[in-house]
């Protein structure tokens, strides 16, 4: 059975005591779970359709053409209309829709013009619609999901590369360290934004959207891992010269064992405290790129794209910028609170002036 060491347990207890960070953490966890099963809450596909005594669960299955439910078209059923139709027919068929019955791509103006419509309970556009009458809540929801997943994957990769390289530099030192430091110095001077713009201009749009997002992620990781190495290098240097490492070496421990069993656990504090801030920077970066039009390919829902629309329609449709801005603020604040709390709980000095 895996057991935390008492030190770590103490830190975790301390983290729980910092209410602001702890509740933020719980909030984020719940948000992640909700987002993971988002299709059940925000979707144009019905949760459950009862048609002629048969039950359909269309959420995660292949699409159902209109003909499946006695309609005369072969493209995907419009479940909202189907619901109305069944209600009118009173033939015992029924449709159960999610709370927000819109997907982030469809233009739905309820027969009117494609323009920003203010929030309305009646239309179930709870945060209104954007400039082409797409549901804002739905776009915000899936935009946040993409941003969060994106930033988490980003963080994992930056950590993997940053830790391996940084640790190796610190541990082996000497020429290896010297050369790698120079390489990193050069590498980190390449302007990241321009690289993204250049690389993105040559990626063919024929690639599927997920793979284009993947490429964007790859480029961002490629130019972001260097910052991590500095911390790791110094930490490793510091730990390496401690007595317990020397002791381990004398006993005959291998390099791998020293790095993984002794050094890494001891620099964990630095790594963990940095993590939320990297997440924050990733979210900001992807939002900024979208805002500038170099981020996720359209029509992918994204916070940056909503912000851009919002700033262009400040006077006429303030609800767009209000929703996007609030969502971003909440997200970044929550992650920052968690980061603060982790930093504090991992701080060996309980009473510090930096509180």
């Amino acid at each position, binding site marked *: 059975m895996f057991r935390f060491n008492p030190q770590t347990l103490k830190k975790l207890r301390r983290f729980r005591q910092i209410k602001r960070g702890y509740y933020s953490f719980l909030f984020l966890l719940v948000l992640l779970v909700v987002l993971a099963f988002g299709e059940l809450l925000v979707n144009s596909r019905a949760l459950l359709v009862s048609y002629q005594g048969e039950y359909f669960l269309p959420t995660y299955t*292949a*699409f159902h*053409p209109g003909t499946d439910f006695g309609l005369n*078209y*072969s*493209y*995907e059923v419009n479940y909202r209309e189907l619901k109305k139709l069944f209600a009118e027919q009173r033939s015992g068929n029924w449709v159960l829709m999610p709370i927000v019955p819109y997907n982030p*791509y*469809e*233009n739905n*103006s309820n027969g*009117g*013009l*494609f*323009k920003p419509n203010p929030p309305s309970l009646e239309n179930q556009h709870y945060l209104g619609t954007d*400039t*082409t009458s797409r549901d804002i809540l739905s776009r915000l929801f899936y935009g946040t999901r993409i941003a969060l997943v994106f930033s988490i994957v980003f963080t994992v990769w930056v950590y993997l590369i940053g830790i391996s390289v940084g640790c190796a530099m610190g541990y082996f030192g000497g020429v290896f360290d010297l050369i790698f430091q120079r390489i990193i110095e050069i590498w980190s001077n390449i302007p990241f934004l321009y690289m993204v713009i250049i690389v993105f*201009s040559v990626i*063919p*749009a*024929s690639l599927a*959207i997920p793979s284009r997002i993947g490429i964007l992620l790859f480029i961002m990781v490629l130019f972001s891992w260097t910052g991590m190495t500095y911390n790791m290098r110094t930490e490793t240097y510091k730990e390496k010269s401690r007595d317990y490492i020397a002791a381990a070496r004398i006993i005959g421990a291998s390099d791998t064992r020293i790095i993984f069993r002794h050094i890494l656990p001891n620099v964990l504090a630095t790594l963990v405290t940095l993590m939320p801030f990297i997440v924050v920077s990733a979210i900001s970066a992807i939002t900024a790129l979208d805002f500038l*039009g170099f981020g996720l*390919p*359209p*029509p992918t829902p994204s916070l940056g794209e909503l912000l851009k629309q919002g*700033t*262009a*329609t*400040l*006077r*006429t449709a303030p609800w767009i910028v209000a929703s996007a801005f609030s969502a971003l603020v909440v997200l970044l604040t929550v992650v920052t609170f968690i980061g603060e709390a982790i930093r504090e709980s991992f701080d060996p000095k309980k009473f510090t002036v930096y509180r």
Partner: protein
Amino acid sequence: MALIFSKHYRLKGLLSTAALLILTACGGEDANAPLSEDVIDNTEEVQAYYAANSGFFAFKTIEDLPDDLSWQSGEGMPEMGSPNAKKGGTEYRALQDFPRTLRTLGPDSNGGFRSEIWDDVAMRLAFRHQDEFDLVPGLAREWALGSDGRTTYLRLDPEARFSDGEPVTADDYFFMFWFYRSPYITAPWYNNYYSTMYTNITRYDDLTFSITTTSGKPDADSKVLELVPIAEHFYKEVGPDFVERYQWRVAPTTGAYLVESSSIKKGRSIALNRVKDWWAKDKKHYRYRYNTDRIQFTVIRDTEKIFEAFRRGDLDQSSLNLAEYWYEKLPNDNADVQAGYIHKSVFYNQRPRPNIGLWMNTSRHLLDNKDVRLGIHYATNWQLVIDQFFRGDYTRLKTAEDGFGEFSHPTLVARQYNVEKALEHFAKAGFTERGADGILVNGSGERLAFTVSTGYQTMKDVLTILKEEAAKAGVDFRVEMLDGTAGWKKVQEKQHEIHLAGFGAFLEMYPRFWEHFASVNAYDVAFLDDGSVNPQRKLKTQTNNLEVYASAEMDELINRYRASEDKTQMTELAHKMQELHHQSGSYVPGFYQGFFRVGHWRWVKYPEFFTHKHANGAGQLYVHWIDSDLKKATLQARKEGETFEPAIRVYDQWKN
């Protein structure tokens, strides 16, 4: 330089450092100044060029002028502009980008500011009357078409002057050909056009000359009459360093407005001044136009900020073409509109329409199948975009050549969105089953998906709407947004699958087909000698044949059309070609805007008919004027809360 030297000379004590300083100082000076130092005079080079190309540049005497010419001078045409126009005042406008250069050709010259100093302002030999389409005199007092149908004889107006007082003479037109054909200008389009479209220029005396075009089209005269002289005396320093040397020089103009050199604040603002004693200021068609004394441009990069500046009164006018602006950002019930401070005007014009639509690259896999193309036609819901996104303001294009009068096809219409028909056509092409996401797949599991790219950022929403609708018909549009240059490059390299774009249409008599549909613009050798398709043909890039359209039948029609000198025959051929193009289904006609609309402060006045039939925009013909007294009065009234009658005007006299 001398000054720097003497200054440091006195500080002999600081020897080495000072010497170094002087060196660097001199180096700096040298880098900036050498251009003006080595004097270039290309007179000899130009004369040698004339002599070497004596077939093109001919010198004759006035006695050689044919005497059977029937001279025309565009008389009897109603005058353009309004006699009520007041001269004076300053107009405030915005530029999104500071001009990268004041040259009108060569690198970076093709920006928006060029039309302010060249296209809309420079005087041509003659102009199309903007209501009647016939020609009215400009720099030429009279002109005559020679018996060969290709040569136009011209008599310049003896009063025609450049803004620096130099008279406009035949020499400026001779020089123009040298200039446009010169490699120094690094403008290949000009090099090519002026080498191939014209075959001769002949000088009879200072003010009399003739120019011959390559073919005798019904509008051969306008190909000549639209030419703008190049001031020989100003461009005599044109040489290998033309691009840098003339980067910021203010060229003398024959037109009404000249850049005010002292007003150039790079990156911030620039101003145009009405030329003092402009030679055409009392001439018919010009005396009531170009009314404001000064036009002040300020750089405001953000579209929204430009609009806000207009709302504040810092700018005099603002385009309200986009539905969003007309209906929401400045609605009719807006306080300033209701108080009569800001007027709103819509003007319906008539002119060739830019052919915005989807251009399919028929050399690509799947798109080479006509059924796939026709399916895409029926799967593209332009009408929905027009009705619900553009709020019914715009109109569906019928063909790629709308607005050319009788040259446009009288009955053809674009195919309407129809899911059943789309599915039928896709089924014929082998796409019968829908995949799990509703997109059609064929027997070998291939998805029916295409990249739809565009270089117009404003078309992003349009494409996402089209994408959603196309998905219903089982075809997936992958939207690719590019910036303007990248988008243009992509289609020029023929790297696109489907591209949303439109070619700007000039006010011309008849549409162009060769550029878009000739097989020489599609492949190097499209067909073999026996007429069959060349299996080894290679794509030709850098042409405007965006569909890679190659058909022997079309080629034959194009050649007849290009050779034809008879208007009725040309019309027939044009219709036939449009039918052929329609049948091939490789272009989905989009929409056009049959009007323009502006918001303008009360002190910006327009003629009672607003502007002329063929105008492209409110300011293009400079028929408006600024009433400075009214401006003062309006600002005062606004301060005191006094209101006026609101003015929302619709000018639909040319609506069709």
